[in-house]
């Protein structure tokens, strides 16, 4: 009689609290050796905390961690690595000016001189690269690599340290569909070679495509673990939020009116002088949502910032509501253009401020806020309270520091601020990034309602599902250009090919 093989990782009754917040409680989880195990859940469901416990970044308050059937304590990431557990972070932990080789030996430099370690690493990288389809030039400077290659370096780094269990945190967020496909191929090879992969993602399709088993987390607990073959996207989504959600948005046909945002031959350079938007022309009409699909970094951000007046275009023209754009964020708002930036922490909010103060950001010269140069806190709070009520922001306390709100509620603060000012056209980037499913639904409905009120919306998102669900027309941006236009419901495959720079018609 054979003893069944112990799971690669087993968690029993793991709990972790931060102050009064129970980030994880009573977590029981078995991850089988040589499998790809998905972990899904909304933001704040406790996925990252759980993985941080496994990786030794946090210590559990209670419970046991067993690796290969043996109970272990993981006080820091060094111990995690020695147990064969490695993490590939969402934001790569690489030193950009270093070569790939130097990055790989980071933390395992060996003795006083790095020479022997580098020689050994070069041979090992070559072997790993061929074994796992992870070929990267070891002498390339890391900063010059594409995002997909950077991720390969991260995985190589983990494998070089002898990792048996690889934890990947939202690995496809920054990848093109082609790069993501390649990543999945690598994951399957890893599995074939006996490695265990833990995949944290919020993209349910990826879970379905690549995992063997999936664990759903909600509010700090495990709500279900299923064999992937026995479940489907709708069930997983339902488990994540505890109720069935609409993955499509209910909306009637658009009735486009006059043009409210026109740009012609726009060319935009970023701060480093690189041309990021190359001769883009587009029109958004009143009463329609125009989506711009594309992999992050193909000029969408610069396009948005140029429309909002933050970046000065090199050439080309922008017209807002049939008037020439004033080309300054403040005056552009006066012309009726509202802008929800794609990164609320970096640009859309001052997180150190009270929420009320963020409810007037960009509209600080509104005469309603006070006489002359004065700005009355009670007037500011009144604006914020109205926005909070209209958008059901929780907790409903406008004096609270903005950083204390969850991602979804922060995003609602930004959206309320921009939409409640009754703009003619709304330029909105990544409206639901880092937002839980309940809030996604709410935000999508608001955008459709704004469209139905006869406003023009330019939607920029890297979430293809979102673009497809909301847009009446879809433009695909690649390498600074609009490379194609499709109808609202266009199929994913043809959009994906366009996004990867492959002409949809030819493919």
């Amino acid at each position, binding site marked *: 009689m054979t003893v069944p093989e112990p799971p690669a990782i087993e968690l029993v009754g793991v709990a972790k609290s931060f102050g009064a917040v129970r980030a994880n409680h009573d977590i029981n989880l078995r991850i089988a050796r040589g499998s790809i195990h998905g972990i899904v859940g909304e933001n704040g469901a406790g996925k990252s905390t759980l993985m941080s416990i496994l990786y030794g970044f946090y210590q559990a308050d209670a419970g046991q961690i067993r690796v290969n059937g043996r109970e272990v304590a993981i006080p820091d990431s060094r111990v995690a690595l020695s147990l064969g557990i490695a993490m590939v972070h969402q934001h790569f932990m690489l030193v950009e000016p270093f070569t790939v080789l130097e990055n790989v030996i980071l933390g395992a430099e060996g003795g006083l001189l790095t020479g022997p370690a580098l020689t050994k690493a070069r041979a090992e990288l070559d072997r790993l690269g061929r074994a796992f389809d992870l070929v990267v030039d070891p002498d390339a400077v890391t900063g010059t690599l594409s995002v997909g290659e950077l991720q390969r370096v991260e995985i190589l780094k983990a494998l070089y340290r002898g990792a048996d269990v690889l934890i990947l945190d939202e690995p496809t967020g920054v990848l093109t569909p082609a790069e993501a496909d390649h990543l999945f191929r690598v994951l399957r090879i890893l599995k074939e070679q006996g490695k265990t992969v833990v995949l944290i993602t919020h993209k349910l399709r990826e879970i379905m495509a690549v995992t063997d088993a999936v664990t759903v987390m909600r509010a700090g607990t495990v709500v279900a673990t299923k064999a992937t073959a026995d479940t489907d996207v709708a069930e997983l989504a339902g488990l994540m939020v505890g109720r069935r959600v609409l993955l499509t948005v209910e909306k009637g046909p658009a009735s486009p009116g006059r043009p409210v945002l026109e740009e012609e031959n726009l060319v935009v350079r970023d701060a480093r002088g690189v041309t990021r938007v190359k001769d883009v022309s587009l029109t958004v009409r009143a009463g329609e949502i125009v989506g711009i699909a594309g992999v992050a970094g193909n000029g969408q951000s610069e396009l948005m910032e140029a429309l909002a007046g933050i970046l000065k275009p090199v050439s080309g023209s922008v017209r807002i509501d049939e008037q020439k754009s004033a080309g300054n964020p*403040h005056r552009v708002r006066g012309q009726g253009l509202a802008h929800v930036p794609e990164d609320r922490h970096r640009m859309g909010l*001052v997180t150190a*401020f009270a929420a009320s103060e963020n409810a007037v950001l*960009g509209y*600080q010269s509104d005469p309603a806020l006070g006489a002359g140069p004065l700005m009355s806190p009670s007037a500011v709070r009144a604006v914020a309270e109205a926005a909070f009520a209209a958008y059901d922001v929780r907790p409903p306390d406008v004096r609270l520091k903005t950083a204390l709100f969850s991602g979804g509620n922060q995003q609602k603060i930004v959206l309320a601020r921009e939409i409640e000012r009754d703009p003619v056209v709304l330029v909105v980037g990544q409206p639901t990034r880092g937002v839980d499913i309940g809030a996604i639904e709410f935000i999508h409905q608001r955008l459709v309602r704004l469209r139905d009120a006869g406003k023009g919306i330019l939607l920029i998102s890297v979430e293809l599902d979102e673009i497809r669900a909301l847009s009446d027309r879809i433009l695909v941006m690649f390498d600074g250009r609009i490379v194609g236009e499709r109808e609202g419901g266009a199929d994913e495959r043809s959009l994906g090919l366009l996004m990867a720079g492959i002409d949809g018609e030819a493919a």
Partner: protein
Amino acid sequence: MRARKALPGWVDYGLIPLLNVTCAFLVSGLVVLAIGADPLEAVQILVWGAFGFGEGIGFTLFYATNFIFTGLAVAIAFHGGLFNIGAEGQAALGGLGATLVCLAVDRFVPWWVTLPFAAIAAGLFGAGWAAIPAWLQAKRGSHIVITTIMFNFLAAALMGYLLVDVLVAPGSMQPETRTFAAGGRLPPLRELFPDIGLGQAPVNVAFLLALVALVAIWVLVWRTRLGYEIRVFGANPVAASYAGISATRITMIAMMLSGALAGLMSLNEIMGYQQRLLLDFTAGAGFVGIAVALMGRAHPVGIFLAAVLFGALYQGGAELAFEIPEISRDMIVVIQGLVILFAGALENLFRPALVRLFVRRGGI
């Protein structure tokens, strides 16, 4: 991108500064002990010297006036995310501005006519001196910390030249201007309020002006659109550009306000006390302003308290050096240094422990 854990207000603004100061005094006590004096006696003398009698209080408030102005100067720049190390030089230039006005009119008009013009000149000269580093940062990317430090040296050199070769009183061997006539002297409070017993303390009308400045800066920062824009720019420059707040405009305005406040410090020292322009009249007040602003959390109330603390250290320290000969002037500088070290550089020493203590109990 980990946000600071929020502490209850009284901990952040009360307990932490108190702990820092207590620590500074404990370590100072050890130093006093090491040189063979009695620390308890030293504290007694220091506190008595600073607050124990009318004249002592008057001196404490006189020094505090300087620190209120320079503390506010550093604080307003700090709200705009700018670290102004140049208050020392801006104050010196402010002194030049005030002096030029005094020398021009002091023989013809009473002090209350001179004061507004001198204040405007002091503010403008200080603002002008701060405007150059501000412009260099806004337009040329030269880091303001470096340029304001360099401008302190330039200010010292300029003042040296002017006092030796241009403004020096005829026939004087000292690098000083002539002594102002009555029209260039701010009356001390002991003359205006003879009943409150300030002895011979030089605290003067500039102290009242400092109190007005505290209120004005509070209104500016928390009750005006400009203050909002300065704070947005300081807390998140990217959000500021998104909100249409011009980086150049805010950098220039915040730094010029800062320079103007630093310049106003000279009213106290030049018109209120020295009654002539002399070299190094700032005596490090511009640098103490940095500690005052840090310790006072860049808030006018905190700045007032911190300025009074440093004023007390100056005055009580002088008393201490007089009473206990083992404790020299240099020892006082050591104690001030320790306060700056604990209140400024080690500001976060106790924060993590307090966060554990209070955040767990109180929820958010």
